[in-house]
């Protein structure tokens, strides 16, 4: 850490984990992008990249920007991780490759497609329920209700205790930031939550034929033992719930605040899937991830020493005008492919096809029944060091005439 820092590196005093920043991240994202391709964040003694080109390049260069030293602020080579590291997220090749192959084998696009019918039944029932209500909280009663039912069903987790899933995800994603008040608040009462999660990762608690049991079945093909299989199930449970809930909540927020865009999805519900892609670009549920340099590396004339933490602003890259036309415009007809909301490269979100299916099915079902969505009160953010999403979103929906 004592290596010389070249004088031409722009320096910023922004704190990306402050409530002020998290409440409205887009102006400081612009500031960081405009400051330069790589910026020194003085407060934490780390580097930041916020432009699409550099974020994408760093994500696709895991030999230089490693994950095994942690993808949060904590450097695992210096601090003990708060939980045994993930075999996927917090690992580098070659160890990472075995774990990745195991899980991509389980979550193949074909297997994910096979879940559609079950998801559609749930989505239909849920949409009928909220349409009957007319006014409802689109987080609690919709964006959260759907994934917290269909996802653990697909994994094969028993019904009892599922409320722990949201609490666990919230804490895990907070833990990638500093140990600030936001983190401490989410860590309260976590002993029981973590105990439940650990239980649910065991083969005997996972339904036969579910994705969790499949992980145990695939694991030996890649020389993974049962303990490793349990950690892979933990990855699904950590990363698969809060992210999707926020993605769906952000979607309803975007539609409620851009009525013309919802009208387009309502007019053609087959656009739901592409519209969700635009949501992930425009209001990215996962805002940031860290990497750690494995060597001194030059980025556009600035030399980052070895062993340095680099904060990659996925959400800022997704609105970089150097890459996107009118990035601050929410446009469901945009070709949003190429956003880094699911990451990119060897650590790209392994559940992204499952997330797309959930969104496609739920937003599609809503689009067929509802012609307009409007805000029915002030939305409330759920502050998290890594995630962007809502705690509540009061809305009123207007059903299409039959």
């Amino acid at each position, binding site marked *: 850490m004592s290596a010389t820092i070249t004088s031409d590196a722009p320096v910023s005093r922004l704190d990306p984990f402050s409530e002020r920043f998290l409440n409205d991240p887009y102006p400081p994202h612009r500031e960081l992008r405009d400051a330069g391709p790589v910026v020194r964040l003085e407060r934490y003694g780390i580097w930041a990249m916020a432009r699409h080109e550099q974020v994408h390049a760093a994500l696709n260069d895991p030999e230089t920007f490693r994950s095994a030293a942690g993808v949060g602020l904590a450097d695992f080579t210096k601090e003990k991780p708060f939980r045994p590291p993930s075999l996927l997220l917090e690992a580098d090749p070659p160890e990472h490759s075995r774990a990745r*192959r195991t899980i*991509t*084998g389980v979550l*193949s*696009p*074909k*297997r994910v*497609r096979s879940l559609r019918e079950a998801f559609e039944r749930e989505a239909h029932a849920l949409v009928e329920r909220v349409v009957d209500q007319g006014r409802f909280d689109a987080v609690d009663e919709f964006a959260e209700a759907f994934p917290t039912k269909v996802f653990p069903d697909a994994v094969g987790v028993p019904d009892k205790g599922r409320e722990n899933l949201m609490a666990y995800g919230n804490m895990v994603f907070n833990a990638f930031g500093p140990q600030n008040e936001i983190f401490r608040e989410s860590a309260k009462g976590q002993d029981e939550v973590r105990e439940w999660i650990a239980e649910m990762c065991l083969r005997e608690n996972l339904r036969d034929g579910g994705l969790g049991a499949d992980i145990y079945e695939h694991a030996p093909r890649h020389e993974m033992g049962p303990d490793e299989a349990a950690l892979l199930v933990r990855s699904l449970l950590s990363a698969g719930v809060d992210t999707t809930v926020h993605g769906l909540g952000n979607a309803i927020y975007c539609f409620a605040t851009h009525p013309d865009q919802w009208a387009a999805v309502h007019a053609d519900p087959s656009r739901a899937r592409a519209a969700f*892609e635009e949501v992930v670009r425009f209001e990215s549920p996962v805002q940031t991830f860290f990497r750690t340099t494995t060597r001194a590396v030059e980025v556009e004339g600035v030399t980052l020493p070895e062993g340095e933490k680099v904060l990659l602003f996925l959400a800022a890259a997704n609105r970089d005008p150097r890459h996107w036309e009118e990035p601050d415009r929410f446009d469901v007809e945009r*070709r949003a*492919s*190429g*956003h*880094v909301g*699911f990451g*990119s*490269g060897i650590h*790209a979100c*392994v559940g*992204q*096809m499952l997330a*797309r299916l959930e969104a496609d099915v739920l937003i599609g079902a809503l689009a067929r029944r509802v012609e307009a969505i409007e805000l029915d009160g002030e939305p409330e953010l759920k502050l998290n060091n890594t995630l962007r999403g809502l705690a509540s979103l009061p809305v009123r929906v207007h059903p299409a005439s039959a």
Partner: protein
Amino acid sequence: MPAVTYVSADGAREQVELAVGTTLKDGALENGIDGIVAECGGNAMCATCHVYVDEAWIERLPERSEVEDELLESTASERTAASRLSCQIKVSDELEGLVVQLPEEQE
């Protein structure tokens, strides 16, 4: 720059010149050629950038990785010996004149 020809499912041919190192997926998207979805953005996750390589080229392309091979089991249109994921093939001088056919369906 090597020339690559994309043949749409209904037989329309379009030849474009692509910079060395560009993937066949990006080559299609950047030139407005329809028929490639590439939902995952080129990360070998979605199998929606499926192409059929012209017979003469099957053996001349670099081999499929295990990941590509496995993903080809999930294509929406039938997999054949000519099936590849266009996000996994980078244009090189050796590929001058390559012809690929786009499938009926990607999703």
